[in-house]
């Protein structure tokens, strides 16, 4: 792999862009395929570039059928988890999700909650959730969980999350809390989308401790990411 390919991979990583590296296995010659097209020493027929571009979208790595002996490695942005509410469950969910390969951001404007002491090594935002979400952008590789139990924090996040392409939206709270939440979201004109919210949040593992609930939430996020919301 050439130094410029390594640099381009770093750039794609920083900008959350997808990138495909095509390698001819016979001699190691490579080219890069991204949304703008093909660059690099390895020349490919139009059909092979189209095949690599399809892998760019799907995020799948595979040998090219239209160019035997060439392997296409797709690099896609890491999944992200946005946690609204720097609460007890968040303290265990954040490092667990990071271990599972998620870029984790904890959002809470209450400094006493979102403090580096409580979240060592975790990316924290002290913005209001609506500001943070507008800045971070909500894409199909991102999940959001509203854990604050405070409608002033959870509701603005959910109002932005529901119409977005987020692959998972979860909200913590009892059945009664969730019913009230649904009433408010209906009043805000988002009634048709509220089915997207996973509540009660998490797979039903039976645990009640914060760390056990964190496992059930992360398990549900992983299941939805790989099996879809109907799983």
């Amino acid at each position, binding site marked *: *792999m*050439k*130094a410029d390919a*390594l640099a381009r*991979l*770093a750039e*794609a*990583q920083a900008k959350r862009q997808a*990138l495909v590296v095509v*390698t001819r*296995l016979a*001699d*190691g010659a490579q080219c890069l395929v991204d949304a703008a097209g093909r660059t690099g020493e390895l020349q490919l027929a139009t059909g092979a570039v189209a095949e690599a571009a399809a892998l760019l979208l799907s995020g799948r*790595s*595979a*040998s090219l059928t239209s160019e035997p002996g060439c*392997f296409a*490695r*797709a*690099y*896609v*942005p*890491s*999944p992200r988890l946005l946690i609204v509410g720097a609460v007890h469950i968040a303290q265990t969910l954040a490092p667990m999700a*990071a271990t599972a*390969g*998620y*870029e984790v951001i904890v959002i809470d404007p209450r400094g006493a909650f979102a403090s580096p002491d409580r979240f060592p090594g975790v990316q924290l935002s002290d913005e209001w959730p609506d500001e943070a979400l507008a800045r971070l952008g909500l894409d199909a590789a991102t999940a959001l969980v509203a854990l604050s139990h405070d409608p002033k924090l959870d509701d603005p996040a959910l109002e932005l999350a529901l119409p977005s392409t987020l692959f998972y939206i979860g909200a913590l709270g009892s059945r009664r809390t969730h019913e009230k939440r649904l009433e408010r979201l209906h009043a805000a004109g988002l009634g048709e989308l509220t089915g997207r919210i996973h509540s009660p949040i998490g797979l039903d593992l039976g645990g009640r401790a914060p760390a056990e609930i964190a496992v059930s939430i992360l398990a549900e996020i992983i299941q939805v990411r790989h099996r879809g919301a109907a799983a």
Partner: protein
Amino acid sequence: MHADDDTLFANLRGWRAAGKPAALATVVSTWGSSPRPEGSHLAVDGDGHFIGSVSGGCIEGAVIEAALQVMQSRQPRLLEFGVSDEQAWQVGLACGGRVQVFVEAVE
């Protein structure tokens, strides 16, 4: 990029920035029940430090050895491991699968 890839490539860039030779191994085809999917990476530096995986741990030793050779020769290699191969049986893909691993130097 996936966070695992992010970490692996950050290591690779760090090794190269420090002037260390480095190689990248990639699973490019699999048959049967192989533990890591196509595209899985293992990165190695000139001292044999490695990050990532191309199997459940059974062929890593042989891949690292090949990677050290590739750093010297600058010629990429395509390795194959499987139960049908006597040498690979010693290396041992216990799962009974077969994998091809491409190993290239990182400039």
